[in-house]
């Protein structure tokens, strides 16, 4: 009994245990439900899984299933961010505890009951429990936001190396607070239409209606919601990585106000989408995205500069090659920042290209081709967010030496191959005709499958090790029990 109690306390009370549980849940869900589509469906694996697990794949409910699937994975990611924030930042114990308790129960309920409802028939009790889970996550957000309140004197800072107001208000904390508060508000833009469309399971995927000139307020609201929520998860993660790397100095002082303004303006733009301001909303979103991305660029420059400086410390006149080697010597600290840069090729750059050449190029193609670009680029963004978390998690695990190199570079290379291939797949019509595409598509698919497969293998190996470790009385879990991320800021 004590054996189980100790492990339970580690898994559900310690920061690293909670993060591990969430990663495990995402891994299981990804592995299981990833077998229902794409190459797994082509290979016939889906049919076997459906039969073995008695999954009920009603064709008319595909869109609803996918929406619940996305939400349940996203909620676990949100939970991971909550654990990280509450471990990295000072916070009153009450808010920390309640936020963690609510988000944990919430995401587990959303994931378990949501997926059960979506894939194993319509028991409305399950749906109710799913919604309860989502609601708990919302309330976790409320407590987190209150806990982050930056104007509490307790959280004022004196170290002039960090962005702050004249009164000592921590601008980084303001950025966290802004992201948390706007996330809460933006959740309504999904919750209200969801109540409307979810009533009777009558729903739609945004990528299927983008070309319709007349959309309802609810439809606009959902389009805005899905964009901003993913963006806010990315903003929050950027701030988390910045804290982990002890982001400070002049770039911090420039970046934090930019991130705050960017987050607010981005949200204002998105909130304008379902209103009569919709025609100018896109421009407002661009205006908001620019400072946010500049803030992230500030973090990348700071982080890479720090890696180089640390790496060449002791060398009097380092050469360019030595600096480069210093930059990439630690994939777990180089990686998250590189992934942010790489995102510009696969997500932001693509989005800008699409926006600029939409009518001349992309809308000359059939809607189903445009759908590939739309779904592709945000799948990549979501996956990049996941890889950044995994790289940070690798550092939390204390990987050293070759293991650190293999794990870090494995994730970076595998994900970059997969996401690069996805991007080529999205854009293939620019350089190859439909009739002649098959050999190229085959290679792209192999690269995608290889990259994603390797990522899953790495993840599976780590999860297996963590499982075995739990049976060890003095395993890694015992060390992690009391560790907080704030103690690992470097």
């Amino acid at each position, binding site marked *: 009994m004590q054996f189980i109690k100790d492990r339970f306390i580690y898994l559900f009370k310690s920061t690293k245990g909670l993060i591990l549980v969430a990663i495990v849940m995402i891994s299981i869900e990804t592995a299981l439900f990833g077998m229902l589509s794409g190459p797994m469906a082509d290979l016939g694996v889906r049919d076997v899984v459906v039969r073995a697990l008695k999954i009920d794949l009603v064709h008319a409910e595909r869109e609803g299933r996918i929406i619940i699937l996305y939400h349940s994975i996203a909620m676990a990611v949100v939970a991971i961010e909550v654990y990280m924030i509450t471990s990295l930042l000072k916070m009153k114990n009450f808010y920390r505890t309640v936020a963690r308790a609510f988000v944990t129960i919430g995401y587990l309920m959303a994931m378990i009951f949501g997926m059960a409802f979506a894939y194993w028939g319509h028991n409305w009790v399950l749906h109710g429990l799913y919604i309860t889970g989502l609601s708990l996550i919302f309330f976790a957000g409320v407590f987190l936001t209150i806990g982050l309140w930056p104007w509490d004197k307790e959280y004022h800072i004196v170290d002039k190396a960090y962005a702050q107001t004249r009164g000592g208000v921590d601008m980084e904390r303001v950025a966290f607070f802004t992201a948390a508060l706007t996330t809460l508000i933006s959740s309504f833009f999904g919750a209200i239409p969801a109540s409307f469309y979810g009533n009777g399971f009558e729903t739609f995927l945004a990528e299927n209606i983008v070309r319709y*000139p007349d959309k309802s307020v609810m439809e606009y609201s959902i389009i805005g919601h899905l964009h901003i929520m993913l963006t806010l998860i990315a903003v929050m993660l950027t701030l988390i990585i910045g804290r982990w790397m002890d982001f400070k100095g002049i770039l911090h002082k420039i970046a934090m106000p930019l991130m705050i303004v960017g987050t607010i303006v981005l949200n204002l733009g998105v909130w304008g989408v379902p209103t009569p301001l919709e025609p100018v909303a896109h421009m407002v979103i661009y205006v908001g995205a620019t400072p946010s991305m500049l803030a992230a660029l500030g973090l990348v420059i700071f982080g890479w500069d720090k890696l180089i400086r640390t790496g060449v410390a002791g060398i009097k006149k380092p050469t360019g090659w030595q600096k480069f080697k210093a930059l990439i010597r630690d994939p777990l600290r180089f990686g998250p920042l590189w992934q942010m840069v790489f995102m510009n090729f696969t997500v932001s750059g693509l989005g800008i290209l699409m926006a600029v050449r*939409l009518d001349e190029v992309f809308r000359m193609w059939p809607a189903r081709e445009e759908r590939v670009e739309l779904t592709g680029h945000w799948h990549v963004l979501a996956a990049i967010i996941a890889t950044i978390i995994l790289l940070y998690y690798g550092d939390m695990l204390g990987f050293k030496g070759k293991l650190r190199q293999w794990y870090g570079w494995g994730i970076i290379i595998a994900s970059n191959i997969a996401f690069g291939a996805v991007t080529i797949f999205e854009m293939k019509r620019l350089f190859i005709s439909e009739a002649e595409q098959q050999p190229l598509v*085959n290679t792209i698919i192999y690269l995608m499958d290889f990259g994603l497969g390797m990522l899953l293998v790495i993840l599976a190996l780590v999860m297996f090790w963590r499982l075995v470790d739990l049976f060890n009385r003095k395993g890694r879990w015992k060390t992690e029990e009391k560790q907080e991320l704030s103690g690992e800021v470097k």
Partner: protein
Amino acid sequence: MQRTVWTLLLLAALLSSCAPVNLNATLPVFETGVDPETWALIPAGEFLSGQFNHQVAIDYDYEIMITDVTVTQYVAYLNAALASGELEIVDDKVTGYYTGDEFRGARHEVEITAGNYIYVPLDDPASTFRYDGSIFSVKSGYENHPMTNVSWFGARAYCLYYDYRLPTELEWEKAARGSEDGRPFPWGDEIARNQANFYTTRDPFEDMATFGSRTTPVGFYNGLTYDGYQTLDGASLYGLYDMAGNVWQWTGDVYERMHYRFMRGGSKDSYEMDLRIWARNNATPTYYSPGVGFRCVRTPLK
């Protein structure tokens, strides 16, 4: 040594992606026994429309072709219409006149003015017909395949030439689904690989290692066995073939505030989700592709 092997393997994989595709690869020839000149009567009445089964009524009878228009049929039209002066050949394109749409200036709306528009390209290697300067002819083996690489203008013109028209989306949907239930596929609730031509169905016309998917003859999925390949009957309740898969089918609706034209049915390149009866695709009316064709409707003959 090991590094060299890996580099060579990677290089070989990348080079293979640049391999040219033989668009004239040998095509199996099968007779399906389905006559493309046959029409099905769709009686007036209610049916369940869309993904969420909203009850809708069409208050008139109409007839619809039981197959997509074939290459043979379209080539016959091209020759006839060229002879009667209804077509023009300009810059390797067969073009014809369209009266234009009302333009309302909506965002992203492109004005379709009166003028000549492309029906089919003559210089596209994926086309399944030839033009020798005076006569159109079918590329061997494609006689009973659906006509593809045809724009919405070209599809509409074919139908109008014979006093038919393109089906509205609603007409198309009712013909595909019937009036009995809210089935997702023309034949019922589930889909099997050998019931329709969609992505990686492994039919005799497909080779994913080289040219990828190709169209199957109209009515191919009718329960017959072709050279060892057993098909399931994919006919709809009204006896229509290929209402799911093979080629997307142009429909005739012209909607306000947008220039896009809509297609139904999914194609040889679609995943099964796009073969569901309510799935829609759209493109500019000048768009053509090896995965897009059409069929016509007409008022019942008295």
